[in-house]
């Protein structure tokens, strides 16, 4: 159900190279998160992590529609976003383990990954909290006359936080180049979205006079890519923000190693969704359309697996941070740091 038709012509189809890169980034997320899940369960990663397994198309379709310099913020389901934006795996894995070589020097951890070098302005442990940060980055682009677009990832749970609507309203009235991307995986922890959400999330855009669309098949990376590409083009053309709701499903538990109270998902429902694995679907598409052979895609999978192995090796060989580094990076001026 497309709520509102995009103005203008449809976007150029992704090139063969871009499609290979989409599959590569989806595989990176899958293998990285599978490894992280094991490492949590074995105690190699302290605390917990939230995986994007099952949601790779929704993440990569969005990040691949952005330019390298474009901005992005995310949430607790936090690894897919920077990986999708092109952040190297080693420093991300090292951050999950708390090593000095982590992308945040071991101060952020899984929940607070950020890699400013790829426009990743930070994931957030507080549901909804990073949404206005993305919009503020779009304000910078607007005032400084830069062509950047900014994208806020948030869940169906966050879609019921007030700050989203303050942000949409202000970004709408200022026509900021920002995309509000709701990852509707249909649950906020244990709570089914339909039991706490009045109406359709994408429809809420209409109330603010901004463009809104619901991508029903969020397991199809190209559908997500097209929707976000169009939103980015509108944003760069000065037409303001878009709200994109992508329907998807998380295959794993809310967070790894966490045993959640009463069963809240029907096992049958999950079985049905497992059949719609975005990576398998795209692989089949690439082969069926004659873009790549099965052997070429097998080689890609092996390559990405090796990349994840290398990220773990990098992590294992990295030192833990020196204790005194806990007392740096609060302020920009050193003499005012309170040790």
């Amino acid at each position, binding site marked *: 159900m497309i709520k509102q038709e995009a103005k203008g012509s449809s976007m150029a189809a992704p090139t063969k190279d871009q499609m290979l890169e989409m599959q590569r980034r989806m595989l990176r997320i899958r293998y990285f998160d599978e490894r992280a899940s094991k490492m949590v369960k074995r105690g190699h990663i302290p605390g917990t992590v939230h995986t994007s397994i099952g949601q790779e198309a929704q993440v990569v379709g969005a990040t691949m529609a952005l330019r390298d310099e474009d*901005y992005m*913020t995310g949430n607790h389901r936090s690894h897919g976003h920077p990986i999708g934006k092109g952040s190297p795996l080693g420093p991300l894995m090292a951050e999950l383990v708390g090593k000095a070589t*982590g*992308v*945040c*020097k*071991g*101060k*952020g951890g899984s929940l*607070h990954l*950020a*890699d*400013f070098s790829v426009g990743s*302005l*930070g994931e*957030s*442990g*507080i549901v909804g*909290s*990073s*949404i*206005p*940060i*993305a*919009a*503020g*980055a*779009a*304000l*910078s*682009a*607007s*005032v*400084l006359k830069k062509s*950047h677009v*900014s994208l806020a990832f948030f869940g169906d749970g966050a879609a019921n936080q*007030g*700050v989203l609507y*303050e*942000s949409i*309203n*202000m970004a709408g*009235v*200022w026509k900021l180049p920002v995309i509000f991307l709701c990852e509707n995986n249909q649950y906020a922890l244990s709570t089914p979205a339909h039991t706490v959400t009045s109406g359709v999330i994408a429809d809420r855009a209409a109330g603010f006079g901004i463009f809104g669309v619901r991508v029903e098949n969020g397991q199809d990376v190209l559908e997500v890519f097209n929707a976000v590409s169009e939103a980015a083009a509108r944003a760069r053309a000065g037409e303001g923000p878009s709200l994109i709701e992508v329907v998807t499903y998380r295959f794993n538990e809310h967070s790894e190693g966490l045993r959640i109270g009463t069963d809240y998902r029907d096992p049958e429902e999950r079985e049905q969704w497992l059949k719609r694995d975005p990576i398998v679907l795209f692989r089949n598409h690439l082969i069926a359309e004659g873009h790549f052979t099965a052997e070429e895609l097998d080689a890609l999978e092996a390559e990405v697996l090796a990349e994840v192995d290398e990220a773990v090796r990098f992590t294992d060989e990295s030192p833990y941070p020196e204790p005194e580094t806990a007392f*740096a*990076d*609060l*302020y*920009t*001026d050193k003499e*005012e740091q*309170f040790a």
Partner: protein
Amino acid sequence: MSLMSYLGAIGAAQREAMDADERVIIIGEDVEANVYGTTGGGKSRADKGDFLQMYGRDRIRNTPISEEAIVGFAAGAAMTGLRPIVDLSYSSFLYMAMDQFVNQVAKNRYMFGGQASMPVVFRSAMFYGLNTGAHHSDRPYPMFMNVPGLKIIAPSSPSDAKGLLRYAIDSDDPVLTFEACLLWGSKEEVSDEEYRIPFGKARIAREGTDVTVVAISSSVPEAVAAADAMAAEGVSVEVIDPRTLVPMDTRAILESVSKTGRLVVAEPAHRTCGAAGEISAIVSEEIFDALKAPIIRVTAPDMQIPFSPALEKQMYPNRITIADAIRKVAGLR
């Protein structure tokens, strides 16, 4: 030099900063129409000094009443190249944006291992002492002192208001400035030159040898008045205004108390976990042996602020309550 009010000095610092750096923008409710008196010249758009005329709508950003988004947008903008000044009008409205202040503004640089810098100033005014009732009379700076990552300032004079705000705008860290409405009209000669007052440097508002009074915000002029009164009673009082609460110039306070051996701390915030409590603790920890008498705090009580002038006027430190504390700490009572 010109005779400038506290409010005029804030406007002057904003104008200088807007002229000096295109990345400085002003965001807030009713800033276009200069409702709070720091973004304009006169009563007409055509009057000289009108910020909207001078800088345009791109840089003078009138907002909806959406404090959480205002603070979040400013933080995101600061992380990506702008240097926003956010006018939140009343300090009580900061609570609407508490998540953004505590979880984003204060933490992002640290959590991201130093990748972010956050050059943004959040201005707000404490409307206490003006019979506005409990919702508008708060002095919430101690709550924010409890959040590592924020810098907290509370200017008490026009010259300080101008110089501290200019330094705040230049700072690459987030600064919350708590202005006092009671001081808005206070006037003094202020330099027309551009100048900056670095953080962490207290001002000795009055020199003395017998008792130290550390005073904050509108308690500073009250403490100076109390010191004048005590001079007539033969007690020489030193009044110190820390000016910036994070970072705090503890050295200046310790030096003064080492000399006088007696300390009164006066501030308009509540008693529990206030700046006065913090200053008292620092002095007791560092130079307990220099103290000749127990420290006395003069603060607002742990009570909400009543509306009626008959009730409100007793709530904050004034020259009489501060002078009483000085007498007591000096052993005159």
